[in-house]
């Protein structure tokens, strides 16, 4: 069904050590040339330079009244045997603050779309015309939480698009540093690496005057094989089509409405 991809590149210890050394140098330079990091709650062990670059990005995204971005996602699945598989997908995201979101899968595989219009959230699977619509919170930030916690539906790069993304990301992060400069899809970026509870994560942020995130990687630490989720972001636009109908769902003829299964079926256990 989906082509399987090769192993992800991994840092060998020696490389890692080299990069760390380089990162330390860069971090020192950055520290010397910039103001102190914001007074936000910040876990000890987080390099202020890394926090500053991250916050510049999240503040920038939060300040945008609307944007569109193409995402390319890779998720890894570890089989019982230890064999690791990767699955690719791409989706297009359109957002208008404070309460509109649309994401749609693009490409030639099964498509699926999410519509959030400030009142309801709909997941539509056009393959065989199924959709589920539920009442949703009135803001995008709350809707992202609602979708994840109550529906088990996670927006691509959902960690990055809310107005309080910085707090969300840093709340449980115990360390973080600037790895260095890196080029992602032709764009020069600052590469940041953080550790949280049960998770390592990295983000690559355009180091120009529009600090868009370009790549985001989440590594799960408590599953053997350390599977990763990766999203690359490209074609950022500040002028997406945000006409209201783009965020509203009208079931096409013949579509069947279904329900979301409750999250955590264990609630039904005696």
């Amino acid at each position, binding site marked *: *069904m*989906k082509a399987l991809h090769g192993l992800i590149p991994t840092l060998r210890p020696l490389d890692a050590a080299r990069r760390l050394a380089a990162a330390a140098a860069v971090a020192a330079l950055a520290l010397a040339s910039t103001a102190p990091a914001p007074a936000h709650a910040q876990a000890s062990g987080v390099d202020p330079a890394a926090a500053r670059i991250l916050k510049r990005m999240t503040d920038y995204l939060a300040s945008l009244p609307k944007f569109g971005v193409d995402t390319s*996602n890779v*998720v*890894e*699945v*570890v*089989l*019982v045997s230890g064999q690791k*598989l990767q*699955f690719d*997908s791409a989706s297009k995201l359109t957002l208008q603050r404070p309460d509109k979101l649309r994401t*749609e*899968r693009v490409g030639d*595989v*099964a498509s*699926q779309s*999410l519509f959030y219009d400030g009142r309801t959230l709909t*997941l539509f*699977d056009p*393959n*065989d015309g*199924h959709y*589920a619509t539920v009442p949703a919170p009135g803001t995008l930030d709350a809707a992202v939480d609602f*979708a*994840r*916690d*109550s529906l*088990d539906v*996670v*927006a*691509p790069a*959902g*960690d990055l698009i809310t107005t309080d993304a910085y707090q969300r990301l840093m709340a*449980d992060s115990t360390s973080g540093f600037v790895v260095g400069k890196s080029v992602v899809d032709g764009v020069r970026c600052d590469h940041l690496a953080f550790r*949280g*509870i*049960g*998770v390592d*994560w990295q983000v690559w942020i355009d180091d120009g005057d529009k600090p868009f995130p370009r790549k985001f990687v*989440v590594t799960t630490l*408590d*599953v*053997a094989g350390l*599977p990763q*989720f990766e*999203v690359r972001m490209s074609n950022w636009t500040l002028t997406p089509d945000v006409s209201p109908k783009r965020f509203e769902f009208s079931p096409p003829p013949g579509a069947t409405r*279904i*329900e*979301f*299964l*409750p*999250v*955590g*079926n*264990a*609630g*039904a*256990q*005696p």
Partner: protein
Amino acid sequence: MITLRNVAAYAASFVVLFCVEVAPESPLGLRLVPEAQAVVGAPLTPGSVAGVARRTTRRVAVAESAEASSEASAQAAAAQQQAATAEQQSATAAQQSATAAQQSATAQQQAAAASGALPLGTVVATLPADCSKMTSGGVEYYKCGPDYYRTAFQGSNLVYVTATP
């Protein structure tokens, strides 16, 4: 190949827009099971840092107990969702009980499979062979052998859950 295809279908739909957040129930990660007992909601890679931190809210999947689901209906589902939501807030305890529940549910599922009928609320990623489609009360069902399934979203995955028309 069947199980691999299931995983592919599952993961492909799963990454469409979103990622399912699930905590590992075992250190070995995703469990592959025969098609007839395909367990949806197996551990996968969380796609959200916040999701990892709040993984007690993840779906634990699979079957409900036979008693609990004998009244399977929209109302029951709604009530369960509320219960589930309440449970999310009670963190670790819920996670542990959820794990136990999944184990017991899986056991039930296997036992039931042996006797030819699945417990109500059993979730599968793909329907068994030779199903016929029917509509009851405006809801679409598939009749497959002794079981009826209705279509549902589990996270962003399209799944089939045993139900009573």
